């Protein structure tokens, strides 16, 4: 049995804002009957204030899909469109006290429906339908996968499936999904389609360089690790070699090597110097 939080069960058993708003200013529909979950979100807008006056949903799906839809409507009512659009799928999951990893796609579905409804109000096509379809089974586009991968710092095809459903059907798109991950994680140097790295900082003096490394670790890397119960501390900088200690849940995490390689290295290379090598000192 899934371990759902009390808040998930509350929103499942007593869903808020079910139905259709009195005046449909924007409408977003994601998912399908055959995919096993689908959400229709309607919003009513105070056009002077650009404010979501009312939001209602209809959902076909599992307990977490219904709870995520209910949570979404509670979170966006009374917000301006821009405030609402800044919500992430993680915010929806957090509102519910967390979702099982296999169910994260329910929170993504909520976010997509919101984007689609706002786009519909603004007379634009739904964002999740832009770009090439990568997963034919669940009709997921490359743009959508890339957005979710970046927003949730995903590193494996399994995670992509858990968050977007892409790759959960026939499995034929797994190589493509791996390709997208590789491109985002900069694992495919020399690949023509690889996105350019953010411009590295201009050549720095040793002191400025160390300070910048400190700053990137403190402001970008540590907070991300802390969200998963871990932490990182800078031990030494010697030329291009940066030595760190992983703490908390990172220290004993078998995935820590990958954390280092994929995330810490990627951030430091992108923001300080492409030549940086990261070493982990065992604490």
């Amino acid at each position, binding site marked *: 049995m*899934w371990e759902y939080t009390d808040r998930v*069960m509350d929103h*499942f*058993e007593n*869903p808020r804002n*079910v139905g259709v708003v009195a005046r449909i200013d924007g409408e977003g*529909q994601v*998912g*399908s*009957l*055959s*995919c*096993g*979950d*689908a*959400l*229709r979100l309607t919003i009513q807008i105070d056009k002077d204030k650009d404010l979501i006056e009312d939001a209602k949903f*209809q*959902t*076909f*799906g*599992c*307990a977490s*899909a*219904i709870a995520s839809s209910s949570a979404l409507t509670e979170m966006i009512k009374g917000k301006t469109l821009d405030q609402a659009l800044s919500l992430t799928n993680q915010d929806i999951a957090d509102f519910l006290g967390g979702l099982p990893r*296999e*169910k994260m796609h329910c929170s993504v579905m909520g976010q997509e429906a919101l984007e689609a409804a706002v786009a519909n109000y603004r007379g634009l096509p739904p964002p999740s339908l832009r770009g090439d*379809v990568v997963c*034919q*089974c*669940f*009709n997921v586009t490359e743009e959508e996968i890339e957005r979710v991968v970046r927003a949730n710092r995903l590193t494996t095809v399994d995670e992509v*499936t858990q968050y977007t*459903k892409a790759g*959960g*059907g*026939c499995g*034929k798109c797994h190589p493509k999904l791996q390709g997208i991950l590789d491109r985002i994680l900069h694992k495919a140097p020399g690949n023509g389609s690889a996105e350019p790295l953010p411009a590295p900082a201009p050549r720095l003096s040793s002191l400025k360089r160390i300070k910048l490394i400190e700053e990137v670790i403190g402001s970008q890397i540590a907070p991300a690790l802390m969200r998963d119960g871990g932490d990182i501390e800078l031990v030494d900088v010697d030329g291009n070699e940066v030595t760190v200690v992983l703490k908390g849940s990172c220290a004993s995490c078998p995935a820590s090597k990958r954390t280092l390689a994929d995330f810490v290295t990627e951030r430091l290379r992108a923001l300080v110097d492409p030549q940086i090598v990261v070493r982990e000192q065992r604490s």
Partner: protein
Amino acid sequence: METIYFDNNATTRVDPRVLEAMLPFFKASYGNPSSMHHKGGEVGSALRQARLSLAALLGCEPHEIVYTSCGTESDNTALWSALRTQPDKRHVVTSKVEHSAIINNATFLAKQGYRVTEIGVDRLGRLDMDQLKAALTPDTAIVSLLWANNETGVLFPILEVGELCRERGVVFHTDAVQAVGKIPVDLGNSKIDMLSLSGHKLEAPKGIGALYVRHGLRFAPFMIGGHQENGRRGGTENVPYIVGLGAAADLALRRLPEENGRVRAMRDRLEAGLLEIPSTMVNGDREFRLPNTTNISFEYVEGESILFHLSHAGICASSGSACTSGSLEPSHVLRAMGVPFTAAHGSIRLSLSVNNTDSEVDRALEIFPAVIKKLRDLSPFWKDGAPALGNALLTCDDGGCQICS
């Protein structure tokens, strides 16, 4: 709130008489049946008695039974024994609707270079006998088929398949985990070579299973060790559980008429009542089916949601929906039958037992319509008591969807 347990194909309650029979073997009767003293002797005679009881339920000889830890071990033992004793044969035949114990072995064997044929089923879950006949070759080492499907209860024509395999000289194994105790089994008058069963499906505890191995069949042990089970399964006997399975077999044999009478009548009444809910259908052949099982699809709602609401009202059931398994696709059994995705996602399995009552069926028939209505009122595919399928985006009609086809 009283529990209404309609999930007896998942597992059953241990009957108090079974537990009673087991308890002495956790206490005073702790001997090892192999030991040459009276503590071992008393245990040895209890094991012999238990074996007689199980043999009576199966209609076989006591020495044709090998105790295992579960149905999965029995399935693994049967499959690997057939392959090891016939190393020149490299072909395995099974079906598309097997339990994962067989399916995942078949996948593994295919990777090891074996040829695997999975026989299909029709819309009602019935085996394609013509395809089976055509699949058998001199290279076929074993045919392994479920007797009763765990999800739909549909029965394969196992006796007929046994005759066919014997004619063609192919070893035949059946996973009868769901069948034993629910329908009559008479192995002595069949051509079945091996049969798997599991204790916890017939009111014995979890952790005990058995494999019937026909007298004279070449056999290679899966668990290599001591001389226990005539050298066919090493490891000190799980004495209390074997005794428990014996007591459960005694009970099951006595209860077969009730299972096929009172339980069947309850199941039929429950099913008929549920079918009065609109946009509802039974999955599987209603004629050749276990007496205790029904698999019903409630279209336009999703199975996990149904289960949680049912559970809240006290009813325990299970579903073939994608969301309950953690995968993204609904049950392989329903897919092999060609059940539309719209219905597969909302499939619920109800499996009864002799412990259920008519008043439980009455209560379930009160609870179900409200649960389905509550979820359909939430569904974008339902409006004013009828399906509302106006939207192409929602119904995925563009043909791009590969899992539907």
